[in-house]
């Protein structure tokens, strides 16, 4: 009598395609997944709890280490929250610098995603191309902040360092370079039949499901929902610039791919305008009291990180340390749809779907 049984397969936490220490327990019937249970927490460092014993400036380096692929936007959300609570003004030059680094960061983050996603799908070269071009951005950041990954660049009320002489010109030169490279990327990957066959119609969900799960970023926009906080709730200086928010129609991995590629282009468009309007001189640090003691109360601010809506909720009792600090991490929220998407898919699609969600485990586990 032939008997078949389900195969219980442990994917991760040490697995090349889980993008860090993330684990999924899958039950396989042949190669088809019947159940998937994500297990997270391998990278949990208790950032939010640690923050309760640190003053606000000391928390900034911790935010670098949450979403380490997009440290600048994390810096910003914390500073922005404290500034909102205290009603601080940020000098224009500082705000411009913040915006430029955030958009550069979005490009860098999407490049990492692009490279690793293609690596997941089995193509090796795009990974190296993406990291080569990301290196130019990393060099710019290195020059600005002295660090390549965890920048600790922003401060409540401004930025730590002014741009060194000639830095803005380097950003200006980078934009056409990157635009040219994007065309190369498209000719290598975007029209590849194998690639399209792998990602079209994979991991589909509709707009209502996306909203129910609280998805944000490209994961939400791929279903056609036009929701980008830079447009819908403009923060920083985004209302001054022209850019489009790409949306999809099918809600599959291919739409998510196209949206992220288009977002790189739109970021470059914003950068182009920002570099032109960049004030030639000015303060980079606003008038900030020596001790940051936000008034007692609560604030929630949210911005658009490369991965979606990143929010910061501060509960202050009027002390130098927050009473409670909570980050709404887009990777964590976006990941929740994974078990639903995986049922009925093959082992290969598991990697495609997981990669398409674009998680950073440092942010999932925080």
């Amino acid at each position, binding site marked *: 009598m032939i008997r078949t049984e389900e*195969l219980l*397969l*442990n994917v991760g936490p040490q*697995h*090349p*395609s889980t993008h860090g220490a993330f684990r999924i327990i899958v039950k396989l019937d042949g*190669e088809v997944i019947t159940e998937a249970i994500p297990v997270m927490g391998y990278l949990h460092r208790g950032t939010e709890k640690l923050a309760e014993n640190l003053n606000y400036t000391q928390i900034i380096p911790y935010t670098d280490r949450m979403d380490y692929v997009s440290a600048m936007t994390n810096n910003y959300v914390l500073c922005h929250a404290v500034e909102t609570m205290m009603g601080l003004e940020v000098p224009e030059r500082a705000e411009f610098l913040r915006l430029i680094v955030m958009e550069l960061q979005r490009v860098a983050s999407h490049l990492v995603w692009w490279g690793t996603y*293609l*690596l*997941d*799908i*089995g*193509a*090796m*070269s795009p990974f*190296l*191309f993406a990291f*080569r071009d990301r290196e130019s951005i990393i060099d710019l950041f290195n020059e600005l902040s002295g660090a390549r990954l965890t920048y600790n660049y922003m401060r409540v009320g401004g930025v730590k360092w002014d741009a060194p002489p000639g830095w803005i010109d380097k950003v200006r030169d980078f934009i056409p370079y990157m635009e040219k490279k994007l065309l190369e990327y498209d000719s*290598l*990957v975007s029209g*590849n039949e*194998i*690639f399209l*066959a*792998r990602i079209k119609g994979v991991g589909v969900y509709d707009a209502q499901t996306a909203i129910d799960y609280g998805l944000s970023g490209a994961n939400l926009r791929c279903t056609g929902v036009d929701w980008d906080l830079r447009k819908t709730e403009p923060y920083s200086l985004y209302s001054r610039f022209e850019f489009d928010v790409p949306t999809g129609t099918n809600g599959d991995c291919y739409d998510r791919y196209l949206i992220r590629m288009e977002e790189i282009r739109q970021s470059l468009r914003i950068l182009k305008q920002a570099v032109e309007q960049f004030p030639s001189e000015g303060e980079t640090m606003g008038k900030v009291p020596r001790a940051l003691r936000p008034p007692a109360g609560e604030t929630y601010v949210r911005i658009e990180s490369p991965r979606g809506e990143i929010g910061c909720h501060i509960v202050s009792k009027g002390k130098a340390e927050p009473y409670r600090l909570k980050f709404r991490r887009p990777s964590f929220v976006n990941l929740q749809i994974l078990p639903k998407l995986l049922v009925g898919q*093959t*082992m*290969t*699609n*598991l*990697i495609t779907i997981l990669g398409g969600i674009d998680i950073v485990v440092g942010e999932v586990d925080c």
Partner: protein
Amino acid sequence: MGDRLLEPLSWGNALIFFLLAVVMLAVVLGFVTYAIYFERKVIGWMQFRKGPNRVGPLGLLQSVADIGKLLLKEDTIPRKADRVLFILAPALCYIPAFAVLAVIPYTNKLYFTDLNVGVLYYVALSGISTLAIVLGGWASNNKYALLGGMRSAAQMISYEVPLVISIVGTVMLTGSMSLRSIVEGQGGGWFWDWNFLPQIIGFAVFVIAAVSELNRTPFDLPEAESELVAGYHVEYSGFRFAFFMLSEYVYVFAIASLMTVLFLGGWHPPAPFLDFVPGIVWFALKFICIVFFLFWLRATFPRVRVDQLMGFGWRVLLPLAILNIFVTAAYMEIFIKR
């Protein structure tokens, strides 16, 4: 060589066979060493890297160092593995890979044996390696390895069939299954007389099926590293792992040779007036082009999905290969009077 096979076996004969096999082994090992180096260099250049450049001049000894490392590594066998099969699998994978080289004619004179069923011999033996991969995946007692092994079996069934059928057209044109006769049938003229143009459909099917046979990108599903970590050889280490890698590259050698022989005119020059150049040079040139092509694919393509792979094999390649037989038969019936 073929004549000696017919003689009764004596000590002298056996010694000659043994020595020649050792020479061939040395050639193949040399090829594998530098094919790996070449692959890493080529892919490195395509990806704006330098590739290996530290060990020896221009990194030429990199592969030697790698092999040395693999030899010195601890050889682990998982406690719950099936020991006998686990040990047997790498050898079983390698032996057919080496044995198929016996029928490849490198030049008019240089070949081991001119078997009159050379094509069948090649195809039949190369199928055994897949068994070894399934065996290795099964014996490892690892779920990833098992999945890799199973994929390999599915892939073999789907692609061995079009591979064989794509060759049939060539065999029909030549009227022989001996690889040497097939090459001689293509000689004497310009390069458009080689089989790849008259058999263009067969050639295309053969190239795709051959890449799949080699388990190379974009058909490297059995060892798909981003899904199955390393697939069937995930539990292998040290020299047993090296044997799997070795047989993979020996198959590159074999397939490139076979493709040269079947479709690219073997040792024949591309134009009649170039026949003062020794045949082995032409063979080597064509061979290198094919090897480069295989490495080039690896730097370019993503991996196909397992169900798409099956669908493509059965629904596209197999009908094309069969169509090729019909077209060839019709062509021969109409144009070639016997």
